[in-house]
Every structure is written in C-alpha cells, then in structure tokens.
C-alpha cells in the first residue's frame, strides 16, 4: 500500500481515537464523586456574627486559669515551658500589655496585678487572613477567624501580621508535650501555626465556647449582629474597650474594665 503523509495522519488519528475509546470502556465502574449531601443541624447561621464580652470586674485569676486549662486540654494544646516555643490559645496578660495607650503611672495595684484574659480577637477585618498565601486562615460565615490546618504551610506571615500576638508556631512536635491526648479532637503537627478558634466545633453543635461556659457571668458570648442578644445588650449598657481599636482591625472580643 502506498503511504503518503495524508494517509499516515488519518490512520494515526483513527488509531489513537480507538485506543482512547477502549481505555474509557474498560475503566472501573465505581463512581468517583461523593454522592451524599450535607446539612447544618442549626440551619445556615449566616445572620450570626459571634462576639465576646469579657467582664474583668467578674473575671479573677482563678477562673482564668480554669479556662486556660480546660481549653488547652480539650484542644490538645502542647504545654511547652520556653517562651520561644510555647503554644497558647488563651493566656493572661497585665492590663498595660493589652491597653498600652490607656495605661498610666498612677494606675491602682489591683488592676496592675490582674491577669487579663487574652485570646484571638476574631477581627472583623483580620490582617492574618489577608496575608495568608494559601488561605489556611479564613473567616467563616459567622465571623470566626478559623484555621484550616490541612493547608497551613508554616510561613508565619500571619504571626508577623497579627497585632495581638494571638498566634503560636509549633517549633516542636506538639504530641511530645501533650500530657493526655483528647481523642475527640486532632492535635497539630510540627511546623504549623495555631490559635484560638472560638470553639467553632462547639458552636456548630449549639454549645458555648469552653471559656464562656466555665467563666459564667464573666464572659458573655453571643450574636453581636442581633441587637437583642445578651452580648449586644452588654455592649450597649457598659463602657467597653477593644484592643488597639485605632488599627481598624475591628476585634470582636470586648473588655469591660
């Protein structure tokens, strides 16, 4: 058979197409797509914006320590002693560290000695979310600034960006520093950043964050988008402070001092 360029190309194309059809028809019959669906038991909470008011007149060091212990225990937060390597979701800071501009030299001892509960502020304009190159840190529909640990690559941009020091980096393998691992919550791995998640795993099933549950009257937690919620009333009736409100990050954690 005389083979010219035209015939060769025709035959070649037909052969490749034939192989493709054969390969497709012999591929396994099990469907790849996930066919189930999802539902949110509480309905879509898109009209909810979670916020927290911490009443420092009612919060004492003992309550704070209870909150820290319960939170860190539940979330498998490693207990590392050195300042550089430590990991924390909740901790205590003196007033002047939180509100430098409001501090003066004649401030009473009882305020100076008091530990102010410090957590991620879950800012409405979160800088950490902007600087994350992989969107590991994101804001969910209820305004909670969460972290997708599956995505975090440990660049620490968010740590540099956060004006509140709310983030910790796992310089060491965290499991070596967890006394008793809580099997219902994951740990983290070496090389990722972590922080308070407003207990989004508890909010999803209609429970309060652990600290708000433990601290009782000292912490009011709720929907700040609803003017009739307990937290909105607290904000309306009391003089409250935000940490470094001049930065425009709009924290959703407020303090009554």
């Amino acid at each position, binding site marked *: 058979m005389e083979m010219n360029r035209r015939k060769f190309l025709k035959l070649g194309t037909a052969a490749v197409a034939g192989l493709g059809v054969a390969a497709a028809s012999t591929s396994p019959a099990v469907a790849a797509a*996930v*066919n*189930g*669906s999802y539902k949110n*038991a509480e309905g879509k909470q898109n009209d909810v914006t979670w916020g927290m008011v911490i009443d420092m007149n009612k919060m004492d060091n003992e309550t704070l320590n209870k909150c820290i212990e319960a939170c860190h225990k539940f979330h498998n937060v490693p207990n590392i002693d050195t300042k550089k390597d430590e990991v924390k979701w909740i901790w205590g800071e003196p007033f002047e560290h939180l509100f430098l501009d409001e501090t003066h030299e004649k401030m009473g001892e009882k305020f100076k000695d008091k530990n102010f509960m410090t957590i991620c502020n879950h800012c409405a304009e979160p800088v950490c979310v902007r600087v994350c190159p992989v969107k590991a840190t994101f804001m*969910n529909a209820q305004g909670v600034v969460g972290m997708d640990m599956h995505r975090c690559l440990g660049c620490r941009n968010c740590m540099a960006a956060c004006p509140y020091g709310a983030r910790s980096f796992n310089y060491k393998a965290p499991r070596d520093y967890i006394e008793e691992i809580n099997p219902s919550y994951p*740990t983290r*791995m070496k090389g990722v950043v972590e922080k308070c998640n407003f207990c989004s795993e508890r909010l999803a099933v209609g429970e309060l964050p652990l600290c708000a549950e433990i601290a009782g009257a000292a912490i009011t937690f709720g929907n700040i988008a609803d003017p009739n919620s307990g937290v909105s009333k607290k904000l309306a009736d009391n003089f409250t402070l935000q940490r470094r409100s001049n930065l425009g990050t709009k924290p959703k954690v407020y303090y009554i001092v």
Partner: protein
Amino acid sequence: MKKTNVIIGIVIFAILVTVPFWSAILSPASGAAPEVSFDTPVINQLSGDDYKCVEDVEWMRAHHMDLLSDWKVEVVREGTRTYIAEDGTEYLASLQNTCFECHSNYEDFCLKCHTYADVNPTCWECHVEPTVAGGAA
C-alpha cells in the same frame, strides 16, 4: 564464538531487568491483597440493616479518601458537620469521632491496606488514631 557470548549476555541482562516481574509471579503471597479486620467491639455489635459503612462498602474501599477530603472541606471551611449518606442515614462528618468509633483497629484496618499499597497519608500527623488515644486495639 563472539556471537554466542553476546546472546548469553543479552539473556542475562533480560533476566536481571525483569526480576521484579517474575519474582512477584513466583511468590504468590507477596502479591495477595491484605485481609482487613472488622473484628472490633462496635462492629461486632452491629447486625442486620445496621451492619453497613457510611456508604456502599465497595465504594468506600475505592473512594474513602475522596469522602474524607470532602468532609474536611465541608467541616473546616463551611462548618456543615452532618453528612447525609446516599441511603439517607445521617453521620457526623468526623474521622476521629465517626470512622474510628467502628474502625478502632488502626493497625489491622487502615494500616493493612496503606502498607500494601505503599501509601503514606499524612492524616495521622494530627488526627489521633485509636491506638494512640488508648482505644480498643
């Protein structure tokens, strides 16, 4: 004489290059699919219609990683934690709190196939496998 040497050389070369193929054929045990164990306290309690996985077993074998990946996105990023399976049953979408409740035998279940298939999923760097948490072995 020279020609024979060349042919012998080619035969030896061919045998050496194909070692992985015929050694696998000669030792049938190494190629056999692993037997995963369903012998756990919770699974042993199941009977009748309750004796099922989240989805069809064949589908789960081939695509559990797709389901878990899907759950990961829905739970972490969308905040929807209830999965409705194709047969309508609702499950909490959680590796540690749902999958491991039945499959509490990490070494005889997960690890068996992962070792056989030579895959090293990074799930366990954070997610707590039942043996670590002190669950049923």
